[in-house]
């Protein structure tokens, strides 16, 4: 992000900073790191990957079934975190009910967005949906920033999950382990729902040929509305789960959404399993980058995206449409 390269800065290689690269000896011996620390980073990567997977899953469901590139996803993730915070601060409801209620609240917002705005754009190019959802995201984030500021609000880790375990190679906070487990469960359940159940088959059929499915007596518009609400609800769930880890901040989604889009593109637009696997996989790759070359950890995902697009434009798991 430092764009002031033309000015004297002590950050250049061999520059004034005497301690750059002088890392602790017991951590960095040969080319890399001892296996123990490697496990730690692997686990951390999985944790971040859990958020990527959950968010890219929602995006993927929405794109796969509605053909809408939902740029509001980051703002909806932020809404989920704020809903959890609001439930705690105003209604005194703890994390556990919030985990159910926050996604529902966000899904209702999604429902309204779909009914009021998105619906009108289905006949047009993707770009219109993208611009609309981007605009809504900007407005939502602006309103929350105006009201709550950029530093964010604190949300405590639920008592039941505070503390952690020393695994020998790292200290794993209980809450982070919980995030991975929930995310995996939700991702797999969603995959199962869409790929392996009757309801899922209706959904997939409706995306292929909506008039035909409608002719069989299925209310396609309602199904689409609910699908959007579900995808958005997943973002809300991710937000509620993120609240105890990050500050509940109006900007939390905008920082994440671009990476998540890259994940979806790498996995293949609309591929459910692709999003899940890529989400976790890229989380791990990013985690390792944070050790080997931390400066590149916020760009590594995009480098991979560029390579994948060159070799397999439809994404790793995608089909050309």
């Amino acid at each position, binding site marked *: *992000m*430092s*764009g*002031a390269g033309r*000015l*004297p*800065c*002590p*950050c250049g290689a061999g520059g*004034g*900073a*005497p*301690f*750059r690269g*002088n*890392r*602790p000896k*017991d*951590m960095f011996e040969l080319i890399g790191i001892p296996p123990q*620390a490697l496990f*730690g*980073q692997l686990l*951390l990567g999985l*944790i*971040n990957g859990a958020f990527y997977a959950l968010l890219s899953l929602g995006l993927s469901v929405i794109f796969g079934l509605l053909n809408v590139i939902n740029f509001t996803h980051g703002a909806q993730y932020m809404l989920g975190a704020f809903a959890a915070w609001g439930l705690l601060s105003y209604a005194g409801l703890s994390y556990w009910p919030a985990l159910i209620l926050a996604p529902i609240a966000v899904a209702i917002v999604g429902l309204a967005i779909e009914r009021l705005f998105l619906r009108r754009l289905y006949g047009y190019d993707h770009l219109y949906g993208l611009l609309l959802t981007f605009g809504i995201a900007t407005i939502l984030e*602006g309103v929350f*920033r105006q009201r*709550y*500021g*950029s*530093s*964010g*609000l*604190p949300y405590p*880790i639920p008592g039941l999950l505070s503390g*952690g375990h020393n695994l020998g190679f*790292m*200290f794993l*906070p209980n*809450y*982070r382990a919980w995030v991975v487990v929930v995310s995996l469960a939700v991702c797999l359940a969603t995959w199962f729902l869409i790929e392996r159940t009757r309801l899922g088959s209706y959904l997939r059929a409706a995306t292929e040929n909506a008039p035909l499915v409608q002719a069989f007596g299925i209310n396609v518009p309602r199904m689409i509305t609910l699908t959007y609400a579900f995808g958005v609800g997943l973002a809300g769930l991710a937000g509620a789960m993120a609240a105890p*880890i*990050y*500050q509940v*901040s109006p*900007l*939390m989604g905008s*920082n*994440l959404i671009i990476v998540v889009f890259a994940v979806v593109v790498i996995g293949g637009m609309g591929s459910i399993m692709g999003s899940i696997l890529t989400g976790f996989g890229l989380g791990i790759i990013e*985690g390792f980058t*944070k*050790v080997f070359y*931390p*400066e590149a*950890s*916020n*760009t590594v995902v995009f480098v991979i995206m560029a390579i994948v697009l060159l070799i397999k434009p439809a994404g790793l798991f995608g089909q050309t449409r």
Partner: protein
Amino acid sequence: MKATILKLLGVAAVGFGLAFAPHGVRAQVSGNVVKLGVLSDLSGTYSDTTGNGSVRAAKMAAADFGGKVLGKPIEVISADHQNQPDVGSGIARRWIDEEGVDTIVDVPTSSVALAVQQITKEKNRVFLMSGPASSDLTGKACSPVGIQWTYDTYALAHGTGGALVKQGGDSWFFITADYAFGHALERDTSEAVLAAGGKVLGNVNAPFPSADFSSFLLQAQASKAKVIGLANAGADTINSIKQAEEYGIVSGGQRLAGLLVFNTDIHALGLQAAQGLVITVAYDWDMNDATRAFAKRFMAFPESKGVPPSYIQAGVYTEVTHYLRAIQAAGTDEATAVVAKMREMPINDFMVKNGTIRIDGRVMREMYLAQVKSPAESKYPFDYLKILQTIPRDEAFRPLKDGGCYLVK
């Protein structure tokens, strides 16, 4: 009759003479308005400590000055540089070239401030810095018309770094925001730690901004350094401190050094997570009646979001006030003359006591070493800091000869 005509001609001549008098004879205000451009982070990570609060502080200063200087109106405009040097320089150039802006104010985010410093220097416009921290702004990248008003990385480093080494924190590991500011802060702190007899075990450069610091914190934990120096700011610092608690870093015996922490950050974190942090500040809203009075007025504006001003925002108020006073005294808003007058006049207000401006643009003022109170110690809203010690001006800032500013002969 003839005499009357001559008299009239004489009056007319005097009138013309006055109207076309050369510069310096009468008060000169370019464009008949003194225009201040507050260039800040209005929407990103630093917008709570600077942002619209800084814009409001500048407007308060203009209003308190009477809204006019040398009989000409004072106008305050603002823009969002989005923490991007290219965006910031674009706005600065447009302001100066097309909109007649006389001075650029605040500019948090050192990478942007370094770019604006070049432009204001080249175009001879006053640059009143309250937000940016990098000590390079009064060192290698100094400017004859750039004034770094509130604080800098050297002051933060020597205040907090020096104090912690004295308390036994003699081995350090840095988590550094990977841009101009983070590197300057890390460099200055490393020097302070070494000078105090400590050692630096390593560092990790975290991309700016980051949300998840787990990996960096684990690297810091593994280094077994006694102190983990957070050479970052805003949301990055908040998330680092919050997540350090999760990984049991402080309970494991390591200490966190928040090198740049504002009251707005403490407010966002809550005292439970922030308590015990030793920090260096330029001001606290609760130091005396004058600071409290200013905070009360500031908090009445919606831009404050109900939180007392950060020292950057308070700094914007006092630097703008001093600038306007200097215009009044100099009789012109021409940059070189105004800056000369600003150096000449002592700075005395609710925030700065007997302050002076050095040739490299550094404002010499007292700084304060403070500790964040525990929830039990805090008696009323925003009662966050106890001042441990006043750092005298000559100790607080880098000696003039060490900065490498070309203006120092």
